[in-house]
């Protein structure tokens, strides 16, 4: 099959990742957030695998495998377990309403496209569009982290962000260390989960602060 075909497929998969990234923003129940994320991870692993195939660089298969096993299966399960274990609310608590979040998301995508547009010389269409999508996924992940109180949703947001990174990484030909990076990130995520569990962070990342604000934080006078 010819290169154009390959590229289009790659874009298609990338677009899927982005799509799931959007979906994450308007989920109202944590369960569905997790499933959506699982799908995104899956899409990512497909993307990685496809790139591995068209760049015939086998090590990307490892990345794909990590994405599939660790993200698409282990993490959602772990989070589900956490939810049960810590009795976290089943519904997503938003700092910013879903509607506005979506709008901002669209704006972010527009911004990232606008940023990538001038990239012309040398860079193939592949990199351009791939990049646009990856960056959008990253920004959306960040957006999710700051518009959601809930610990679990924030973990998800962080991983979505990371998915964007991996997407970008696999998208460009012969990027070294992709595997190591995805491993490193898995470690990070694992630590976060560990932290959530260990420190009993029930509802939110920032809940730790709240009752300390008056006492410790920044030793205000």
């Amino acid at each position, binding site marked *: 099959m010819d290169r154009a075909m390959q590229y289009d497929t790659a874009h298609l998969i990338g677009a899927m990742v982005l799509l799931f990234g959007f979906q994450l923003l308007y989920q109202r129940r944590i369960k569905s957030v997790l499933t959506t994320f699982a799908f995104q991870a899956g899409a990512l692993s497909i993307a990685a695998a496809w790139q591995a195939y068209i760049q015939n660089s086998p090590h990307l298969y490892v990345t794909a495998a990590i994405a599939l096993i660790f993200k698409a299966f282990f993490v959602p399960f772990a989070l589900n377990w956490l939810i049960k274990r810590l009795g976290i609310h089943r519904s997503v608590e938003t700092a910013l309403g879903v509607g506005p979040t979506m709008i901002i998301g669209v704006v972010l995508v527009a911004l990232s496209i606008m940023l990538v547009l001038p990239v012309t010389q040398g860079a193939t269409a592949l*990199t351009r569009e791939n990049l646009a999508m990856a960056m959008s996924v990253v920004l959306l992940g960040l957006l999710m982290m700051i518009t959601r109180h809930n610990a679990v949703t924030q973990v998800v947001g962080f991983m979505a962000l990371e998915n964007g990174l991996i997407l970008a990484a696999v998208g460009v030909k012969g990027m070294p260390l992709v595997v190591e990076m995805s491993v490193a990130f898995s470690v990070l995520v694992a630590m976060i989960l560990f932290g959530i569990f260990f420190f009993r*962070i029930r509802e939110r990342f920032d809940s730790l602060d709240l009752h300390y604000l008056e006492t*410790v934080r920044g030793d205000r006078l």
Partner: protein
Amino acid sequence: MNVHYLVLGIPLIASGLLALISSLRVSTWVNVLASFSCFATSVALLFHRPATTPWLFIDDFNVSLVVLTAFVGFTTSVFSAGYISRERKEGHLNRRNLRFYHAMYQAFLFTMLLALMANNLGLMWVSVEGATLTTVLMVSLYRTREAIEAAWKYFILCSVGIALALFGTILVYLAAQPVMGPGEEAMAWTFVIQASAKFEPSLLSLAFVFLLVGYGTKVGLAPLHAWLPDAHAEGPTPISAVLSGLLLNVALYALLRFKMILSANGSALAPGPLMVAMGLSSLLLAAFMLYKRDDIKRLFAFSSIEHMGIITFAFGMGGALSNFAGLLHMTMHSLTKSAIFFAVGIITQIAGTKNIVGIRGLASSHPVLGWSFLICVLAIAGLPPMGVFMSEFLVVSSTFARQPLLALPIMAGLLIAFGALIWKTQNLVFSKPSIDAGQQYAPWALAPLFAHLALVILAGVWLPEPLVEWFRSVAKMLG
């Protein structure tokens, strides 16, 4: 075999070893010895440079930083020996903690040295992340709620920062790959810098933005600095010393590597203004924050932010003088600030409090400690004949000459910060003593402090020729 493998190997092995040793005295000794031998070997790098590989390399820029890191690592290990043993005695730490602590200490050194020597940008990123993880673990060492909270804040903010930095790195590769073809070379700094003139400028600009925010978080530039004061305050003081003294430098170093690529490329977005803006915001914010500090470690954490601001500003201004000043300031700051944290460690231990208001008249109760602490603070505040003055002299004067309007905020920031530091220190060192002179500390505990102070004063008066040469060549590269 090459020296730098040795420099990297020693801490790596040591950390593995220390994870196994459970006796406090032994592990302390091992820690000190390992750090010392690491420093000793690193000195060899000054005289002969190992060959550059796509993975590791030594050049004018990182050689001085590597030696500095190894040196401060060593002195801090000496200091921590005394500090930790006292903490153990007072039962703040148990045996398991300490084992973990020492292992992590060496691991931390390793990751930083690796980050400095890394030629491959990805490797550099990985090791910076490694440094983050190890320090997170050490900050949470005391297991108090504050400590854990601080560690958590630190961890979350820095992992996001790290992620952004990685994206930036990928973008750089993205820019490099069409020109240099796929493969490791397209990620090795030494090769990239040569080809970067032909890179896609807009990609580089984009990359730099992500890198600035990403690594900037680690450097502690306002408004990305939130993690820094808490991490400094809640961790054990030796860690605060290395955090301020070394980790911030490493992160800044990473950033500067990319700045070089940009300035070599020319047509990409000029990194200067962005860095100047970040630097100024950090300087001014920190300067004002200093006034509200009651916790002595937080006070100096913010002063670190302030100085990182100055350094970033200097590099942002660019030009031979400013860059030179920036490099000098990096060195001087890490020496001075770690010395300050040594003193602070002892002070908090003998005073039994971190609250500045509770500590008075140190010069009367503990003259040696008090005066050396005062001198350290004066040094960091930029009074001659200490090294920081030299760099501030160059920064401010050259800024006045080129951008008088930019000089005003710098001047204001420095003045305000100076005011806060002096006011608080003056009351701490002078006035009627609040600590009873009976509270003793090991006399040799001040040795590392004196070593740093001697270097700082020496540098303020006279700089060795080769160092000057390196700095100038680097300054040229920084554009």
